[in-house]
């Protein structure tokens, strides 16, 4: 089959349109550059009344919003994809497990995420100095702070300046007031000595410009917002970039296979397969900016083998794919009798997700795990969906009455317990390890003929101890809220309830930055040590994760790297 070549030479080819790719597109377009954005999935705009899922009722879905293999967070979740995409497998080294969530569409996984937008703090960039584990980043908070500030103002995030040492202040929009169950959490957490603050999330509780609307409190950010009042990369970065100074050519349904190189080993562009006609195409660019997600970008690099780069592009260190790490996760819920018999006559949907949270408060030097976790809180009178009314009166057991039955008693039981469950999730930092990695599986290709990833990932006792501590915390806070704990407390046999690696969808570290080309893939400007015109602007460059979500840092770093790309192009260094 002949490969179809596009004659145009772009200033930059950006692979992926999520947080990292979206930001690079915006910054480079604002600088007036010619850009190709190559996205593996289809176009998506939640402002399209037919394409949006926001404000749909459960009965508009045949499965009443139930999740499926191809939309695991529910039928209305905005993210196309999931852990398991038809025709695009991945494999595991025996005895290890990594759940890889992919969302192939304009905006990528930013269409799904919880919009929890936390800056990393000064300590988060210097983990090794703190406790000897992992490695320090080659940059510190002060390098990133100006970009966090710019991201806050460009995209919008609500929160409060609290002067906390490792949870920096920013330029926040005002937060929404807590909901009823959140007031219960505040009281319970205070009794347990756990601090609580307004959450920090990227929804517009206040206008920031005329291109985006203001939150109308439907609580459905996971469905993507039709007035662009929450952040997703398509609506808040790609679309504005298309109206900016530069030229943005958007290639959707286009799966990048590899970065192409010349005789000197420098990148010349990318080759991709169009899902529409199953043909292979080539694009030419002065620079290639990978933002396909930590693991997908690593895969592209490892698949970009040539005479000059026999181990894959940028992989002379053999570090590409290594140091893969995800946030840790554990959860518990409780029935709160004081939240029974609620008045339903008001709308408490609020913003999608929590109005309050607890950043890490502990002193790890006195604990048997080195890194912290933050707590997320959920509950409330949610919209009915598949699963509503399941085991409707199990809580009768706390009152000595019979569970089960049939007839109108089920109706009154449903109403009695509606909104009386509160849950807490811990999301923590794991240690980046060389022996947790993804690599190319030499035996398997996907339906596009591209060799797939094989994962090797195991938690250590450090993460298990952290999960154990988190479960002790859940138990204490939920009990202090007057709650009756649901389910049983997972013990050692179940890794203390620690979720499978990958489950929290914060994969980072596979193309980590560092000063030493032998132990890292990119320099501190996210430029490959081996090839000066290839950059990585997704979470692959994270030297370490923090007890935070990674998106705000992806955005800040991508902006910083994009400024560097512009400068280098201007100087004609690349």
């Amino acid at each position, binding site marked *: 089959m002949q490969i179809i070549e596009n004659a145009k030479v772009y200033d930059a080819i950006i692979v992926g349109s999520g947080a990292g790719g979206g930001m690079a597109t915006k910054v480079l377009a604002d600088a007036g550059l010619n850009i190709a954005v190559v996205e593996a999935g289809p176009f998506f705009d939640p402002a399209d009344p037919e394409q949006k899922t926001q404000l749909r009722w459960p009965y508009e879905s045949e499965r009443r919003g139930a999740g499926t293999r191809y939309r695991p967070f529910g039928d209305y979740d905005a993210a196309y994809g999931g852990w398991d995409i038809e025709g695009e497998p991945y494999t595991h080294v025996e005895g290890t497990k990594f759940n890889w969530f992919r969302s192939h569409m304009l905006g990528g996984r930013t269409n799904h995420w919880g919009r929890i937008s936390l800056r990393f703090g000064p300590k988060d960039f210097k983990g090794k100095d703190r406790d000897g584990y992992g490695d320090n980043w080659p940059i510190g908070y002060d390098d990133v702070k100006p970009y966090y500030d710019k991201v806050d103002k460009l995209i919008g995030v609500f929160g409060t300046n609290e002067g906390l040492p490792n949870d920096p202040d920013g330029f926040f929009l005002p937060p929404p007031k807590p909901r009823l169950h959140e*007031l219960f959490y505040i009281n319970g957490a205070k009794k347990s000595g756990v601090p609580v603050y307004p959450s920090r999330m990227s929804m517009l509780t206040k206008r920031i410009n005329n291109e985006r609307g203001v939150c109308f409190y439907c609580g459905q950010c996971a469905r993507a917002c039709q007035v662009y009042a929450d952040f997703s990369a398509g609506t808040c970065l790609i679309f504005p970039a298309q109206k900016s100074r530069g030229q943005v050519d958007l290639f959707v349904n286009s799966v990048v296979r590899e970065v192409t190189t010349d005789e000197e080993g420098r990148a010349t562009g990318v080759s991709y397969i169009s899902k529409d006609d199953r043909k292979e195409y080539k694009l030419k660019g002065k620079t290639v900016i990978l933002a396909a997600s930590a693991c997908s970008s690593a895969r592209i690099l490892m698949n970009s083998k040539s005479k000059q780069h026999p181990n894959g592009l940028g992989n002379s260190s053999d570090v590409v794919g290594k140091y893969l790490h995800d946030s840790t996760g554990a959860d518990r819920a409780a029935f709160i009798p004081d939240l029974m018999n609620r008045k339903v006559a008001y709308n408490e949907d609020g913003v999608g997700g929590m109005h309050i949270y607890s950043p890490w408060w502990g002193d790890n030097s006195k604990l048997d795990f080195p890194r912290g976790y933050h707590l997320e809180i959920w509950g409330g009178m949610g919209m009915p969906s598949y699963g509503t*009314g399941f085991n409707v009166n199990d809580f009768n057991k706390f009152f000595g009455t019979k569970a089960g039955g049939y007839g109108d008693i089920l109706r009154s039981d449903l109403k009695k317990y509606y909104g009386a469950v509160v849950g807490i999730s811990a999301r923590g930092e794991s240690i980046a390890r060389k022996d947790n990695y993804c690599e190319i599986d030499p035996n398997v290709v996907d339906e596009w003929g591209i060799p797939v990833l094989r994962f090797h990932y195991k938690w250590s006792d450090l993460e298990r101890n952290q999960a154990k501590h988190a479960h002790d915390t859940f138990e204490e806070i939920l009990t202090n809220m007057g709650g009756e704990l649901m389910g049983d407390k997972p013990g050692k046999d179940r890794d203390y309830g620690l979720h499978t690696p990958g489950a929290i969808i914060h994969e980072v570290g596979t193309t980590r930055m560092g000063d030493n080309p032998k132990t890292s893939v990119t320099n501190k400007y996210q430029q490959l040590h081996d090839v000066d015109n290839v950059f990585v602007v997704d979470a692959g460059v994270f030297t370490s994760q923090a007890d935070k979500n990674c998106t705000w840092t992806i955005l800040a770093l991508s902006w910083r790297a994009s400024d560097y790309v512009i400068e280098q192009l201007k100087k004609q260094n690349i």
Partner: protein
Amino acid sequence: MDRRKSLKAIALGSVATGLAAHGCKPGEEKPEVTDVNAHEPVKWRTDYENKILTEIKEGEDFFNEHQRETMVLLCDLILPSSEQYKGASDADVVSFIDFMARDTESEKMQTDLKGGLMWLDHKCNTENELVFKDATIEQQKAILDEIAYYDPNTPDSERPFEVNFFSMVRNLTMSGFYTTKLGIEELGYKGNMPNVWDGVPQDVLDQHGVAYDPEWIAKCVDQSKRNIAAEWDDEGNLLT
């Protein structure tokens, strides 16, 4: 068994028959075929999802006539209609369960539904010499009284099959009903529409014995200023 493949085979089979039936004699008028089960692709789903729905909806129903009649009865015993309330069949709960039985790809769910309905008829035949749907309401309730209750502290893997079967039907009936317009109205859920959230009403705070901390509230959004564009000083203090 790969149900998707088998369904696909059924779908392809029916297409082929359709062509054979309609495409042979030139000049003959084609009959209007309107399939009530046809899936109308929607743009908010991916092509793949629309394809799967087409396969399911154009495939055969899960319940046969007898099973469906029994299910209608059973679901209406779980959520009966009355002067005050709408019942399960008012919301066509059985069609929802029929769809879910095919959609969830759970062989266990399918087997348990079929097996549970057989169990009901066997039990009713043994006790009343009638299948469940032909029994009197008293006879039906007498059977349900034996299987409708359970101890939540006993894991369901240790509960009798018939108890778990009834729990499953009860769960599906509840979800099926309370996710319809009728059910949502009855529950009284007030959301899923544009709103301005400005905190929990005072009477609700009072009812549950909680209060807002004035210091906390002072930091929260002033909804009267939400449309005024945000501006900050250099320290990040919001000015507007």
